[in-house]
């Protein structure tokens, strides 16, 4: 094989590797070393009733990382059961607590807003877990909740858990864009 051909083939291979790499490597990485202590997302708007104009919720880059990482979503699934979220929200279909698989989010459906809802608690029964669940685990539970409505990375979401299956495989749920995201332009929640 002429040298030109070989060099072109190697370049094509490297290009293929490079473009695939970032997508795959985020989904799969597991930071085994002690994680830097996580902090809550800042400036989260959960309601659009505020005097005068104000910016919508800034999107926290860690949100994308948690939503796109398979290990964080799997841990979120585990903690969703451990911390008894299923007690009120059942397996995502809702019951005492609101459903988490549809597209109606009274306090916002983005991961930062779900984090705030878990941490601060909400009226009518949602307890505040601020100090009770470390920050990283709240991020992970929020990522799992996002995957329940198909908004997390589909490739990262597990298809089911080893238990009675009451919801269709969440790796197949087609994306339900969050309505009721309290951005500035719209008045009132979803």
């Amino acid at each position, binding site marked *: 094989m002429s040298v030109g051909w070989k060099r072109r083939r190697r370049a094509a291979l490297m290009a293929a590797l490079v473009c695939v790499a970032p997508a795959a490597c985020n989904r799969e990485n597991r930071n085994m070393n002690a994680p830097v202590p996580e902090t809550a997302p800042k400036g989260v708007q959960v309601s659009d009733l505020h005097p005068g104009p104000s910016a919508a919720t800034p999107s926290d880059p860690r949100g994308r990382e948690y939503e796109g990482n398979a290990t964080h979503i799997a841990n979120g699934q585990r903690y969703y059961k451990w911390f008894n979220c299923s007690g009120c929200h059942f397996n995502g279909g809702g019951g005492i607590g609101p459903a988490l698989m549809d597209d109606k989010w009274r306090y916002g459906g983005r991961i930062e807003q779900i984090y705030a809802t878990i941490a601060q608690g909400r009226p009518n029964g949602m307890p505040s877990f601020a100090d009770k669940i470390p920050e990283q685990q709240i991020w992970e539970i929020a990522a799992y909740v996002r995957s329940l409505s198909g908004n997390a990375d589909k490739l990262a979401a597990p298809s089911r858990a080893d238990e009675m*299956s009451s919801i*269709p*495989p969440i790796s197949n749920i087609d994306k339900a864009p969050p309505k009721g995201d309290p951005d500035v332009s719209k008045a009132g929640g979803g």
Partner: protein
Amino acid sequence: MTARLVGDLSPLPAAGFRSHGLWFWAAMGFMVIEGAGFSLACAAYVYLMNGAREWPLDGVAPDLGWGTAMAVLLVASLVPNALMSRASRKRLAGPTQLWAVVVFALNTLALVVRGFEFLHLNTRWDANAYGSIVWALILLHTVHLLTDFIDTCFVTLLLFTHPIDTERFSDVDDDSVYWGFVVACWLPIYLLIYWAPRWAP
């Protein structure tokens, strides 16, 4: 050591039927592989059935209608299949073409019946282990139904478009053997999917 001539191979014929040719052995090899796959899938079905409290798990067995229709259709198709095989081994172009078209038609009909079967399984693959193994068995058989559909279509087409020589006749004959295998595989699966839930204690 020097070589000494002991015989001449030129008068040998250049084609043979069934086990004399090589293609037949490829079909036999894949039949052994798929036979092993089918029997293990059926063993898995029985394993899950024995492990379950009640079978089918959500209580609704598939409707008998279409499955039985498929079984009857496939067994019936063995007659034209045998006639096609005999005609091809007698190297009679006319009858071979005729029966090949009949077998191809029955094969197409079988695919249509299989479509209806899917609608009347009364379970989803992600409902529970019963649904998963039923869909696995029926999908395994459908893949072989499809491959033989394409093979029969391909072989029948060539009977009309290309000059027919011994190799074509031998291809038709090998295809009839493979179709016999596909029919033979359906019978145990039919019993498991349609009758096991009804007989299970």
